[in-house]
């Protein structure tokens, strides 16, 4: 009997190949999307979990108060490490200070490699949970030794064991390799920062008081909490460390320390007013929601399409009953069929997901794979197959099996049956989701376009940035610059401390005329030289640019418009600003606001200071727009090598850095675009289900109308009208929903686009067009049928 059921099911599928393809394919697509989203969520939730002390690692953060706005800083100062160790040693197994990742150049023999890594204190191997390949964890911490990641060790030393071998760091320090560890997994926050690990002591050799004081926040501090103390307890204990130790200036901002546990780094690292308000977790929820919805829609669709055809099965039910089938047996048969189809869909979805993985990983920048051996996959498999199978089997099983055979066999007019209303609601629901997603995608792209159109205040095109990583490069700067400028491929070369696309340093405690004594200032810093403005083509609005003609420019500053406003200058030129280190700075010019940070925030008050001590270690090179890029780059690297044979050249295009600023938004836009496309597709399947159902139901009516003289186009209009109405209703419901959601999304961006009404119009229009295309296939077929045929079936 089972065999017989399966046979019938299989033959039914083969007989209606197109239908089977749409039905199985649609469901498989839904399963596949859900599976991929599930993998994404799983990956996000298990981030950092490979750490063997997952629950005991935390980072020390501080909340600082700037005139009522509480900012959360990661950076800490050097004395904090010792303070935590001596005063709160009972709470921590390890306190490890670490620099932010730095790029260093390593040389062994003829091999030269640049790599990102950090300088950390002795406990680093524990904090990072290093998996040693060579050497012992305990050997970390000697200033003249270094640990290498497997990748770096391999590129420097090849296959041989490098322990005890020496290498040159940045052409100036000779270090011995004391350990080699496995590369950090991709799902670790430390991944990009641990190409090498050197001792912080090495960096502190000869460091001035500035680096060692309580005022300079330039380090990160990680801790491992002792076994029977909770994060909350330790966090509460260290709250006032800075208040108890630091000087008056630090206290102005009322620094409050707290611990941010490893388990929250990935998903809860967005702070507002000193409180974690989430972060990526928002996207986890959003995607989870979308995933569940896609599965829901696809399943309902599947049920919808399956049952749309159930009328065709009515005759079979009648016959089976007449030749002796009981109701139970029929129910079994229909369940068997739907389970078979759902099963096929599920396996197809595994194939689809596997095929889509490379693209998926590319877009999401992940490294996930289908976890074939993971019990969750199979639990999900059982639950979803079971649920969808049973649900889609329910309707035919119970509705059809209850048919009185006589009705179908005698050829009495078939009752329309089924829930037309249910199908309509379904279609509306699907279009609410689809149109919402479409609007969301459009708004995201509009926002990206909007910020792209924002005036940068400088020219990114043809701007190349090359870090000066070793003394050799710094020493040869002038000669290198002059040689480049001899060629007409390069227009200008200048130095700056930060890339113009990313200014992250700030100073505070300046003083100027008219400053409210209680005002706690914080001003961003651009350390630049004479040619910088010309190189990036900024616009001086008042006063003048830095110039070699004025010897006094060594203490000159140029403010941006925002800074002028921030400091409240009526007439900024000539104003004297007292720096916290005692110098008097003179404002010589005002420059148009430039986007040196986030594209989405208003411009920050920034002071461009002349780099009199040549601290700025970034070369900005402006290409001549009329030269061939490849040629210019060849020339650049030749000249660079000529002057700096021992330092490999690394460069970034300012344009790429600029694109980075909306890379995340672009990625979200791309994903939501894909989701929107799939939602539309799935909704069309739902429409198709309804259309074929309606077409079948109205066969007789269409026949009669035709006999009475209706033309195909009139019938098409009549049949399409209903669907267009449904879709318009769906759109009408989606617009306020999408509008609300996207307004919320845009709220996160200080600089944001307005959603125009035409955008909603386009989305609705698009939905209607897609609808007409989809249903026309069915309606035209129904309208073209020979009426004699359709009437005779009655």
């Amino acid at each position: 009997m089972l065999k017989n059921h399966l046979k019938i099911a299989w033959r039914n599928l083969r007989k209606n190949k197109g239908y089977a393809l749409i039905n199985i394919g649609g469901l498989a697509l839904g399963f596949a999307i859900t599976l991929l989203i599930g993998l994404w969520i799983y990956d996000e939730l298990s981030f950092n979990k490979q750490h063997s002390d997952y629950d005991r690692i935390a980072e020390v953060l501080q909340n600082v108060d700037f005139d009522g706005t509480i900012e959360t800083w990661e950076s800490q100062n050097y004395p904090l490490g010792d303070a935590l160790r001596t005063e709160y040693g009972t709470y921590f197994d390890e306190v490890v200070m670490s620099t932010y990742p730095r790029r260093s150049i390593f040389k062994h023999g003829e091999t030269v490699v640049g790599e990102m890594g950090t300088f950390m204190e002795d406990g680093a191997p524990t904090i990072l949970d290093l998996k040693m390949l060579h050497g012992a964890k305990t050997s970390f911490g000697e200033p003249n030794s270094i640990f290498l990641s497997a990748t770096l060790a391999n590129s420097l030393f090849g296959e041989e064991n490098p322990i005890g071998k020496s290498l040159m760091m940045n052409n100036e320090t000779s270090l011995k390799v004391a350990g080699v560890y496995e590369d950090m997994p991709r799902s670790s926050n430390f991944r990009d920062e641990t190409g090498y690990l050197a001792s912080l002591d090495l960096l502190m050799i000869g460091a001035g008081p500035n680096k060692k004081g309580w005022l300079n926040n330039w380090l990160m501090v990680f801790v491992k909490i002792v076994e029977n103390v909770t994060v909350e307890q330790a966090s509460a204990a260290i709250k006032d460390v800075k208040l108890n130790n630091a000087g008056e200036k630090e206290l102005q901002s009322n620094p409050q320390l707290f611990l941010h546990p490893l388990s929250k780094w990935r998903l809860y690292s967005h702070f507002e007013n000193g409180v974690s308000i989430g972060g990526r977790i928002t996207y986890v929820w959003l995607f989870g929601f979308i995933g569940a919805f896609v599965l829901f829609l696809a399943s309902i669709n599947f049920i919808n399409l399956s049952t749309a055809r159930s009328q065709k099965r009515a005759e079979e039910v009648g016959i089976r009953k007449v030749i002796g089938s009981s109701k139970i047996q029929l129910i079994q048969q229909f369940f068997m069929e739907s389970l078979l189809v759902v099963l096929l869909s599920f396996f197809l979805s595994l194939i689809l997901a596997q095929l889509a993985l490379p693209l998926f990983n590319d877009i999401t920048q992940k490294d996930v794979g289908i976890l074939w051996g993971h019990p969750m996959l199979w639990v999900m498999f059982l639950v979803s197959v079971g649920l969808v199978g049973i649900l889609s089997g329910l309707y035919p099983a119970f509705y059809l099996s209850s048919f009185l055979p006589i009705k179908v066999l005698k050829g009495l007019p078939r009752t329309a049956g089924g829930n037309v209303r249910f199908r309509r609601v379904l279609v509306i629901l699907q279009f609410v989701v689809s149109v919402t997603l479409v609007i969301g995608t459009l708004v995201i792209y509009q926002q990206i376009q909007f910020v792209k159109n924002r005036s940068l205040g400088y020219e990114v095109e043809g701007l190349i940035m090359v870090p000066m990583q070793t003394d050799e490069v710094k020493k040869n700067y002038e000669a290198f610059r002059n040689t480049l400028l001899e060629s007409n491929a390069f227009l200008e070369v200048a130095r700056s401390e930060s890339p113009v696309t990313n200014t992250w340093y700030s100073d505070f405690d300046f003083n100027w005329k008219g400053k409210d004594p209680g005002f706690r200032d914080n001003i961003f810093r651009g350390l630049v030289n004479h040619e910088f403005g010309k190189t990036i083509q900024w616009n001086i609005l008042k006063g003048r640019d830095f110039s070699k003609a004025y010897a006094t420019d060594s203490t000159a500053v140029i403010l941006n418009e925002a800074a002028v406003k921030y400091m409240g200058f009526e007439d900024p030129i000539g104003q004297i600003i007292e720096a916290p280190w005692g110098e008097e700075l003179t404002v010589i010019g005002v420059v148009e606001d430039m986007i040196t940070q986030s594209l989405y925030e208003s411009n920050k008050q920034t002071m461009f200071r002349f780099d009199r001590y040549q601290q700025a270690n970034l070369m900005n090179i402006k290409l001549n727009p009329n030269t061939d890029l490849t040629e210019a780059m060849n020339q650049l690297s030749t000249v660079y090598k000529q002057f700096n044979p021992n330092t490999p050249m690394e460069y970034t295009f300012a344009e790429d850095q600029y694109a980075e600023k909306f890379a995340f938004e672009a990625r979200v836009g791309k994903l939501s675009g894909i989701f929107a496309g799939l939602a539309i597709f799935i909704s069309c399947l739902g429409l198709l289900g309804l259309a074929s159902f309606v077409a079948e139901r109205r066969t007789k009516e269409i026949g009669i109308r035709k006999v009475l003289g209706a033309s195909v186009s009139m019938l098409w209009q009549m049949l399409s009208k209903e669907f267009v109405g449904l879709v318009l209703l769906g759109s009408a419901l989606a617009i306020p929903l999408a509008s609300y959601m996207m307004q919320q999304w845009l709220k996160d961006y200080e600089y944001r686009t307005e959603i125009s009404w035409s955008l909603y119009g386009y989305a609705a229009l698009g939905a209607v067009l897609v609808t007409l295309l989809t249903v026309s296939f069915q309606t035209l077929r129904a309208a073209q049928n020979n009426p004699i045929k359709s009437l005779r079936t009655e």
Partner: protein
Amino acid sequence: MLLQLNNIFKWVNSGGQRIFLLKDINLTVEEGEFISIMGPSGSGKSTLLYVLGMLDGFDEGEYHFLEEPVHTMKEKHRSNLYKEYIGFVFQSYHLLDELTVWENLEMPLLYKKMGSAERKAKVADMLDRFNIVAKKDLFPPQLSGGQQQLVGVARALISNPKLILADEPTGNLNSKQGEEIMELFKQLNSEGVTIIQVTHSEKNASYASRVINLLDGRMI
């Protein structure tokens, strides 16, 4: 006595009016009879046939089948009764298009939960008897109308029913095919199977030993 109908009424309510489909039908059928039901369109022939076949109910009256009261029986019992004793033949054959001839014949036996060996023997026997062994792996749409009806009759017979109910069995067939089916019925009847058929054709009706005429739901 095979079955007996006493004062059977069947009606539908339409527009506040009661329309009678069957009106006071009294009928006794003995085992081994061959009955034709005749009458114009809408006279209630098919309705009567389906009432006899227990596929359709009635509103008033009594129906005894093999001395058992069908009108008070539970659905399950009734369905067992008819699975056991009644076979149906339709005008439009009503074979399952997705199943081969063999599988179509096997179906009723599967529903009776008969063992595999016995099923095979019975199906083979039936194919042989109707001379359609060569067609056993074909699907119904691949057969001619006459052949399909042959399969239809074979399917009705396979569970050894006492009664065969045929609703215009030759209605879709040409005269030669029709004649063959009628000859088959005659032969089955001579082997002891009771047959009740609905027909429009005087000629087919004449194969029967008794003719019942219906008009507006009444026997005349």
